[in-house]
């Protein structure tokens, strides 16, 4: 992995259970989407087209299921002295640095599939809508303690706007 997106820091990776959650999520959402499109298409199009759509949908689903593991391995976060680094992405890589002092709130959310695996998602809110800092697939206990650490660090280092 390029050094540009993982500067030297204590990088934390996501648990492999999250890859399973992501695969499952991709599978369910894609199959539903494919089914809806296919059903809608068969009213307007010839059968060969509908079969083509189904095949394309299944192919896309397979692709996402295969990629899920790699995407989860690409995700990393690092707590540094003054900011939190988040990196992810396979094709479109990115590294976001959010200073603790800029965080307005830190939320923990957990959907039904994630809960079944005991995972939770951490959402970081800054004054900017573009920051979009989130760390998915953390073990729930880890998410809660990370949230508390981030809030404490944010209070300690609050930066004036």
């Amino acid at each position, binding site marked *: 992995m390029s050094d540009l997106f993982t500067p030297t820091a204590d990088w934390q990776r996501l648990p492999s259970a999250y890859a399973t959650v992501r695969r499952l999520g991709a599978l369910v959402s894609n199959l539903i989407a494919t089914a809806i499109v296919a059903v809608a298409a068969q009213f307007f199009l010839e059968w060969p087209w509908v079969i083509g759509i189904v095949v394309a949908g299944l192919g896309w689903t397979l692709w996402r299921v295969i990629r899920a593991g790699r995407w989860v391995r690409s995700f990393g976060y690092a707590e540094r002295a*003054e900011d939190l680094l988040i990196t992810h992405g396979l094709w479109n890589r990115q590294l976001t640095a959010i200073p603790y002092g800029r965080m307005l709130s830190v939320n923990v959310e957990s959907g039904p599939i994630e809960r079944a695996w005991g995972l939770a998602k951490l959402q970081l809110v800054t004054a900017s809508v573009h920051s979009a800092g989130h760390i998915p697939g953390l073990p729930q206990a880890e998410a809660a303690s990370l949230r508390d650490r981030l809030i404490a660090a944010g209070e300690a280092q609050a930066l004036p706007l």
Partner: protein
Amino acid sequence: MTASPVPPPPTGPDPDRPDPLVEPGPHNPTDDRRHEVTERPHPLTPFIRGWVVLLAVIVAFGRDYLPIGRDPQPLPPLEVIFSAVGVVALASGIAGYFSWRFTRFVIDAEVLRIDSGVVFRRSQRVGFDKVQSIDVVQPLAARLFGLAELQIDVGSHDRPRLRYLTRTRAYALRDYLLARAKGVQAEAADHVESTSVLVDLGAQDEVLVRVAAQVLLLAAVTSHEFWVILATGVVAAVVGIAFNLPWLMLVIAIPTASTLVGFVGRRVTSQFNYTLSQRAHGLRISRGLTSLTSQSLPPRRVQAVQISQSPLWRWLGLYRIDLEVIGWGQVTDNEEKTGVSTILLPAGTLDQVRVALRAIWPRADFEAVQLHRAPARARWLHPLAQPFLRWGHDDSLVVSRHGWLVRRWQVVPHARIQSVRVAQGIASRSLTLANLEFHTAGGQIAPHAAGLDAAHVLQRQEELLRLVHHPAPVDLTEPPTSAELSESQTAIGGGDSDNSASGVRDQAGPDARRADQADDTISSSE
């Protein structure tokens, strides 16, 4: 000059100049904290607020009796009309009187209170430490009667409004409230200023930038928006010719022409007589032909600045400056809005750009930032923009330049950056390029730098992240200290920029800061 709680008579032959209203100046809040200033809206207020409704009613009912299209209905007997009009007039008059009677604006030692409502009483309190800025807005109807509305910016989108007051009274009250918001207890003496119909300028104000109507017109006609509208019309017309549909030409030509006229008209009227001025309590922008708006500009809340230049403006040397100001909502692209606008400079020369930016950030010089070119291979991703792409930063500002049709300069102080992102798409990676994004509150200007050398970004990364935390220890919006003042005096004229005269800030420092620190809560609510 009399602090009279007694309202002026509800009806008067001369609505322009009712009683000498309450002057807040003479009373001194330091020695009399219990003293309240009570202010009532102008008696004409209900009529001005209701004239749109009245017009709608007349149109809705009158349409049936006009000989348009179908045969008009026979007019009802005259007595019926008169009695109907009489009843409506009486009812609205009574309603208006009571709404006027029950509305009052009270200024006491701590808060501004707005009481209103007859049946459902509503009392709104605005703490002086929450006041960010105060704008004077004069919609057309109010303006015809010499009235104005005060909009108090407390950082939220829902602005407490005082409407309507006489123009001079509105300006005086605005200055008074601003002074109170800055924690100034002693009051400036000269409230009676030369406020003309077209501008909001006092004698002691210093004009920094003024844009003539001709420049606005020229800028509107040469702007890319104008040409986009025109090009759309022309393309549609060509399609019409190609398909041999001459009637289509007409169908296209009329809306295109009216859109163009409307666009130019809006640009000119909304920014008519644009004046950026420096007053004792901060910067002020006043503008508008049909509705005059006078808005305060709090430099401390400016998050990001974008200077843009339409293609034809390159030959004319014109630029436009947009601001991202926390709590001001959307960056203005529709100039129709009468209220607050995020345009710092509708169209101006490079010198005016410098003056305007110097006014909000006296300590920053965006031109002094050393800029780096994009590597030649960025041409593959940005074929037309590559020669123009630049980015750079010093220890207080980040500056980037991009765009090929419309050129944009984006300037963000490190101290306003919420987070930094390095991004690299699959094409960028094969070219070892990277993009930088600087996230600011609000986030509509979205400052970014594209097509950078990845190695260069890597080298700068740590530095950038450090600067978000530890920007240069100067506040860009602070006026230079007296030592620096002497050298910069010629450049920015007064030297005292930002929120207050330098003498005032020293004594009122904590209070002045307090008003600014409300920003934290503002951003969180966005």
